[in-house]
């Protein structure tokens, strides 16, 4: 993406630039993974510590364990559609790729909406114990992931619509696909955490 500069100024091939893009995205995923794994570590650390018996809210209210999995489900559908779109781009099947990317984008927006709705209806406040603090942290960080990913997926759909993607120029969907897969894994980690409440 930022490597357009190399493409335009230095006349490097799309493949040369794309390999770098892939490497860069993998490294950014590494950084984001460190953040996500720290969240998981903190969740279980506080759960096991249960200092002053303060893990669960006093009235015992916790979130529905299925909530996070609904978002993960929508994310998986979006990621699969995106992958189908990428395969269609590789075959220069523009009609199919555009349909898949667009549906992927819509599903991603749906996942974002579901996540936002869940946040607005969490049955406890952020200060009611460390479980609630962790739950808010996980859902909010997931929301940020979803918004960013929706931007990327819709951007790819739009670029496909404009005819900027084909079997030669497929590096942007490829690296976006890596990111999308990571977002699915990250959301799954969050969902696994929230299964272990007590």
């Amino acid at each position, binding site marked *: 993406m930022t490597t357009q500069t190399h493409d335009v100024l230095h006349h490097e091939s799309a493949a040369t630039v794309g390999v770098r893009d892939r490497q*860069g995205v993998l490294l950014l995923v590494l950084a984001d993974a460190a953040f996500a794994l720290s969240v998981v570590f903190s969740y279980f650390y506080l759960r096991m510590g249960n200092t002053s018996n303060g893990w669960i809210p006093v009235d015992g209210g916790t979130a529905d364990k299925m909530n996070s999995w609904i978002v993960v489900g929508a994310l998986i559908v979006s990621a699969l559609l995106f992958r189908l779109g990428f395969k269609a781009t590789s075959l220069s099947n523009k009609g199919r790729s555009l349909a898949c990317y667009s549906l992927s984008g819509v599903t991603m927006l749906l996942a974002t909406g579901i996540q936002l709705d869940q946040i607005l209806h969490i049955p406890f406040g952020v200060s009611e114990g460390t479980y609630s603090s962790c739950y808010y942290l996980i859902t909010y960080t997931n929301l940020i992931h979803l918004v960013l990913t929706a931007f990327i997926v819709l951007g790819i759909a739009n670029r496909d619509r404009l005819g900027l993607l084909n079997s030669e120029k497929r590096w942007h969907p490829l690296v976006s696909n890596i990111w999308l897969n990571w977002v699915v894994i990250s959301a799954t980690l969050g969902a696994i955490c929230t299964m272990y409440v007590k």
Partner: protein
Amino acid sequence: MASELITEDTTRHSANKSVGIIRHLNFGTAIIVGALSAVTVNRIATKLIIEGDETWRRHDQIVMATMLAWFIGFMTGIGALVGPTRWFFGKDLNHDEAMFLAGKDMGLKRYFRYTTDHKVVGIQYLILTISLFFIGGVLAMLIRTNLGHASGGLIPPQVYNSIVGFHGLIMIIATIIMITGPFGNFILPIMIGARDMAFPRLNALSFWLVISVLPILAATIALGGIPMGWSGYNPLADQGPLGVDSYIFTIVIFAISSAVAGANITTTAMKMRARGMNWSRTPLFVFGTVASVALALPAFPVFMLSQVMSAMDRSFGANFFNPEFGGSAWLYENLFWIMGHPEVYVILIPAVVAIMEITPVFARKPLFSFNMAIVGIFGIVGLSIFVWAHHMYISGWAPLLNGPFMLTTELISIPTGLLFLVILGTIWRGSVWTRLPMLSVYAMLFNFIIGGVTGIFLSDVPEDAALHGSMFVTAHFHYTLMGAGLTGALGALAYWFPKMTGRMLDEKLGRISFWLVQVGFTVTFFGMFAVGLMGQPRRVEAYDIIFRNGNLISTIGAYTIFIGMLILLSAVITSWRNGEIAGPNPWGAQTLEWMTPTPVPLENFEVLPVVTSNPYQYGIKQESSS
């Protein structure tokens, strides 16, 4: 190909009209948009956020919202969002725009724009680093002046604590970027034979992210400071004034900047090396810089998370670190030190490899054991992930792990020792050309030995029980971060100054500065070791009369350092403006950055180089060519 490109550019460059909105965005617009956003959001937040029982949380929320608005406004105003927005709408950069962003023919203005040329970013980082060191240095002088008297009194205790924290924070940021920022950006791409960094716009982004938080960092003073110190320990930070919000915001943005820079530098080094530059022909500076940023890449997000949690605790009443409601102070300590100790090597490794780059050039003989140096660098990186809890021996967290952490910490002296051996082996029986960069080599060896050996003392659990929290620890980490790290960076500055500015650094002023700084440094921190061994705790603004002499000596030494640094600053400024013109390769070095003309052209190389040998063939080059 390059000449074709230049011809094309001269015909098109005047057609700036096609450059669009990018042309209008610069540092000025960034400040205006940032300030307007901050004021607007501050007013809206003040009206919308209802005053509840906990007034301080409302204030934290308003301050956080204001800082976020400033940040988004600033980044919009500088042009950081132009690229992603245009990518989204499928309007990719054309040639004119790419050239404009690269700062072609823009003179000094390019330093105040979202310029993508790695050399501009390198110079921007250099100026930033010098500025941060100046501010941090002035704060150090305030601390030492206050400690010149046993009763303190010059600065009120709360303000003193904030100054210590502010000094620590600024110096940590400065030392993290002091090599990878200026030299990692300016020198590394040329050193590997590349035309630019892998992600030029991300390069500009990493720099302007840091700039965007400087006003927020400065606002710390007006918002009550950071009396809990630079480590931001919780739950102390939870109880701190609004200045802590500035601290939190600064750390979060700095972590993002580090991740972006880390991904960029690593990708550049891994994917853009010149043809023929396999790993055994890659200069050590590249290995060290990549090791440093790659170590920072997973380490800083952990610290970032601790600050996100801290922000939630302060602004919304979350309980991550408040033991009364289920939180844990140990969680914060773990998250902080999982970043905190690798960070020491994030700072040190680039400094050591810069010194290793300098040594064979001035010893005029091949580097002693390239492979040993690689083992040393990656041995440090590997072990540094497993040493964090030696900072927590006394905290009571997992006492059973004290032994293993003592072992890993002491083991790290082995790969560090290998790096020493490489430098000493290179100097051994060399025809040493003792110019300014080489003086830094000697000084770093001397200081790092003291810093390293005292580190082994502190890694020992019983010893640490006695010395933890004392001035001895302060002296130890100054010996490593300043004595070794900063000295290495000053060597790098003296070495690469001719390439970056086209002029030689004034040798005479440089030498005066060098001796003042090194003598002052030794006096300052030997005094500190002494009072630390006698039992003086750190972070106190007044102390018992028995520590008076040691502190007075330290203060005299600190003033000597400050004078030496001011002389260096004047040498940098005067040399940059009127110094002796440097040729393309004044040191007779063999790495690729010295094969380009000075000043380095926009695309670095007219024709991309092909590498056929390792870069340390000093003293045997003529034989092979004949």
